[in-house]
């Protein structure tokens, strides 16, 4: 393989160098306000940009569109067309004036010399490192011709596949799926690598995934942070947890890792990974036996409580619960009883817990415990996981009709899809859905027709998907891989064409959260830099070219204005929910949805209309009607590996930025001192961590934040380091996910490895 880093970087950096970019700005008079240092042709924005007073800036509303609980509302300060700094919006009580370490690096992200600046083509073949700058017209022409050629040869466009996930959760970004809808029936990598098992679990139990407002936690009397680490991953929630604690609430963290959140809790309880469901079942048994369950609520609102109780009576032995979870029985009892006595009490369940082969069953067991304690449907209570109740937009950019005469999938599985995939009710055809969590395998195996073109957007496949070796093979057998991104990442290295994409500051959009209840407008704050284009504009260009080549071959609008597209997403339901008359009001700041306490009316969208301890659907799909204990995956190597999210990155974003390297330069593997001693590994030693999937080399840190028998490495993509923890993860599925998201999740945290000193 002749990939040459220098070659790529010189192309990435030189085309429009920072110097000529700045020259352009100077010519337009923009630079007169900059301190002298910035004119240097180095990759950094130089010290010091003085603060000039609120009145000296133009301000814009923006949102952080990343896959983050907090979805911050941002206020962007612009002077002479250049972003100077950002602040968290003061109007949102949730964002409360500040973003996180990642959000505060946005200025650097926008103006980073490492950004993709113009379309490029890898002329030497995938992975060759031999790149050539091409024009947008040229790039779009190649793609359009390839699509039409495939359609002609295959009689369908099922050979064109789209993989898109959470790189940008802005509503208009569903226009990327819209682009694929608009060319015909295609292949989609469907499902979610993130939270599917838990989504299914909550839907089975309550008919929805719906959580109480996190801001209510300030009034909770007892909070269990169960496998969730808001001190790193939802820092804006911490103020409510602190407030509750200050008012006397007990905050308990149950986690295999002594996390940042654990260090700030009242109590930390370490548990063996994958046994949380059993603990919840034991806790339920304890409070029922003590008569602390909410019989009245259960009678009125639940289905199958009797069967559930019979299961606890018969199958759950408290001594076993203690033995298997590793937690002393007295501590479990104390925890269960004090939770049941505090009202309101709440549990927040993280997404890591359901990334096990028994993940969905564990979320179901915890839901059941919260229900038994009578905390569902209560202010400041609830079994919290996430919600999509503020996401009722029009999805106008998504909803594109198929071109006339489109032929699609009629495979043995028949019609299959969910709302987000734009299913056509009037047609006998569907798109073809492949499991996003087995991307490599599915791309390789798809037949009739083979996948020949892959479009990657809002996603860094090589950083986030599993089984790297197979991925390389899968990419190599594709005729054309198009990667639309902001940075030259590992996936781009395996592309044929890369397209530079706008940041949220260069386009319009609208954003909501899957955790809090705020709605934020995202305005275009600056003109797009270099030759970058928004995903919607790229779709429009493709449509224009395809229609030139073959009239009617693409239904996507041939020119778009992101502002108009954003405006089309609003509807009376959203206006009603947020108490506004027009989206224009959002220019004054974010607004919050009218307060609703989930399930307070006792209405559940389950088949029975009640909370279902016993779910026929669960029996049908997953073989167990009750949230019964399911043993976790058996180890296949010496050590369990856990790969949580770090504070420094959101999946593969942010850690690659120059500024982030200043606060967190390199990855480590965290090892319990006992395990390290056994392998003669000392602090700072370089070790190899390996398994049947791959091998990573990195420095060790020794800490009993991780339990013996477990190695911890954060999931991150570095600009200057080949480290990628997902290279060790195989694609073994979690138990649930197929019900609501189209595919099961991945049992990421059931990865096993070994290590040795190098």
């Amino acid at each position: 393989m002749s990939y040459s880093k220098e070659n790529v970087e010189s192309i990435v950096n030189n085309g429009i160098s920072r110097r000529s970019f700045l020259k352009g700005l100077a010519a337009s008079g923009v630079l007169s306000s900059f301190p002298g240092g910035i004119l240097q042709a180095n990759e950094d924005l130089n010290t010091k940009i003085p603060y000039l007073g609120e009145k000296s800036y133009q301000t814009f509303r923006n949102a952080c569109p990343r896959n983050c609980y907090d979805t911050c509302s941002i206020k962007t300060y612009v002077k002479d067309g250049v972003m100077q700094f950002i602040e968290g919006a003061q109007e949102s009580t949730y964002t409360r004036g500040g973003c996180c370490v990642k959000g505060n690096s946005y200025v650097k992200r926008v103006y980073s010399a490492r950004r993709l600046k113009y379309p490029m083509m890898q002329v030497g073949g995938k992975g060759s490192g031999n790149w050539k700058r091409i024009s947008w017209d040229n790039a779009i022409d190649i793609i359009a011709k390839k699509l039409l050629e495939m359609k002609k040869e295959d009689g369908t466009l099922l050979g064109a596949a789209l993989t898109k996930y959470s790189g940008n959760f802005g509503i208009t970004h569903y226009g990327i799926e819209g682009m694929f809808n608009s060319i015909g029936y295609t292949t989609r990598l469907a499902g979610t690598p993130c939270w599917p098992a838990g989504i299914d679990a909550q839907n089975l139990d309550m008919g929805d995934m719906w959580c109480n407002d996190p801001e209510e936690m300030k009034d909770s009397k007892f909070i269990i942070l169960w496998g969730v680490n808001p001190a790193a991953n939802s820092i804006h929630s911490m103020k409510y947890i602190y407030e509750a604690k200050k008012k006397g609430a007990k905050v308990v963290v149950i986690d295999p890792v002594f996390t940042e959140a654990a260090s700030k809790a009242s109590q930390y309880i370490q548990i063996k990974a994958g046994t949380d469901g059993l603990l919840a079942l034991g806790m339920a048994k304890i409070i029922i036996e003590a008569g602390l369950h909410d019989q009245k609520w259960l009678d009125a609102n639940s289905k199958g409580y009797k069967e559930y109780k019979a299961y606890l009576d018969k199958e759950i032995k408290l001594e076993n619960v203690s033995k298997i979870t590793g937690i002393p029985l007295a501590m479990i009892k104390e925890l269960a009883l004090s939770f049941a006595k505090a009202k309101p009490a709440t549990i927040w369940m993280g997404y890591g817990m359901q990334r096990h082969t028994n993940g969905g069953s564990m979320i179901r067991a915890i839901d059941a415990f919260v229900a038994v304690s009578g905390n569902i449907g209560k202010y400041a209570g609830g079994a919290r996981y996430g919600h999509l109740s503020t996401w009722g937009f029009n999805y106008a950019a998504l909803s594109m009709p198929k071109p006339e005469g489109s032929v699609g999938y009629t495979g043995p599985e028949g019609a299959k899809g969910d709302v987000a995939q734009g299913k056509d009710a009037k047609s006998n055809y569907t798109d073809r859905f492949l499991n996003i969590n087995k991307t490599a395998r599915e791309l390789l195996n798809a037949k009739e027709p083979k996948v020949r073109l892959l479009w990657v957007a809002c996603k860094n496949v090589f950083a986030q998907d599993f089984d790297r070796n197979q991925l390389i093979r899968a990419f190599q057998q594709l005729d054309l891989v198009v990667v639309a991104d902001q940075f030259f990442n590992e996936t781009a290295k395996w592309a044929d064409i890369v397209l530079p994409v706008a940041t949220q500051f260069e386009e319009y959009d609208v954003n909501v959260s899957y955790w809090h209840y705020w709605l934020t407008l995202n305005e275009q704050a600056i003109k797009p830099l270099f030759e970058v284009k928004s995903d919607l504009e790229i779709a429009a260009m493709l449509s224009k070219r395809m229609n030139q080549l073959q009239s009617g071959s693409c239904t996507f609008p041939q020119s778009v204005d992101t502002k108009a597209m954003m405006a089309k997403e609003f509807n009376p339901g959203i206006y009603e929910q947020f108490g506004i008359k027009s989206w224009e009001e959002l220019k004054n700041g974010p607004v919050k949805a009218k307060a609703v306490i989930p399930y307070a009316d006792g209405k559940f969208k389950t088949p029975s209309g009640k909370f279902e301890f016993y779910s026929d659907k669960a029996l049908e799909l997953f073989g167990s009607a009750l949230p019964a204990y399911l043993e976790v995956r058996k180890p296949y190597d010496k050590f369990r590996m856990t790969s949580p999210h770090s504070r420094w990155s959101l999946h593969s974003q942010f850690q690659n930025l120059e500024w982030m390297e200043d606060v967190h330069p390199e990855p480590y593997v965290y090892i319990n001192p006992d395990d390290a001693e056994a392998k003669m590994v000392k602090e700072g030693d370089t070790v190899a961590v390996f398994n049947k999937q791959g091998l990573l080399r990195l420095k060790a840190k020794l800490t009993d934040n991780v339990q013996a028998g477990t190695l911890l490495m954060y999931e991150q993509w570095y600009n200057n380091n080949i480290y990628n923890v997902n290279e060790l993860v195989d694609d073994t599925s979690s138990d649930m996910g197929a019900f609501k998201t189209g595919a099961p999740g991945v049992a990421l945290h059931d990865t096993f490895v070994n290590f040795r000193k190098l």
Partner: protein
Amino acid sequence: MQKAFLVDGSLCLGCNTCAMACKNQYHQDKGILWRKVREIGAEEYHNDNNNILPTLVSYQKAPKAQMPMERFYFSLACNHCENPACVAVCPVGAHTKDPETGICKHDQTICIGCGGCVKACPFGASKFNEKMNQAEKCSMCWERQADGKTTACVQSCPVGAIAIIDLHDPKYKEYANAAPIGIDYAINAETKPSTRFIHPTMPKEVYRLPKG
């Protein structure tokens, strides 16, 4: 009045939002942080690599801290000393101490880049920017404060772990001589640094799985 940072290690998440908020506001070059989030027990403050020469202050030994790795922190910037060495040493008056607020300001338009302040500061708070050949440091966002805002770091901290207090206000007397644990902060330095600390503690109950 002596404006000062009160940093609360019991709330601090170590999230580095404050340090990045400062970069967001002022665009410090790669490699330079005016505010740094320091891990308790892990770092040697006086070895700050931007402090190009060893300083003359002998550091008091950091009180021992048996804190878990990467969990407990203090966020530190310039300490806006009552007798600032940077002000004393600067030959051109680029460093000044505001008589009203006690904020120690640095003015880059005056700075000639002699580096005296960088050597004199016992805390490595004044940094040397080799590209610009000038010193630079936290000036407690005095421009923002004059504009009715709080500092960028204070505004961004998600949990209120940094506050700006008046050290001369008797209500903060209890913090007067509280040296931070686990960080060799020269509280006895002749410069009389103003930063004060609230110490973190471990959770009351911690259960770890037994060995084996």
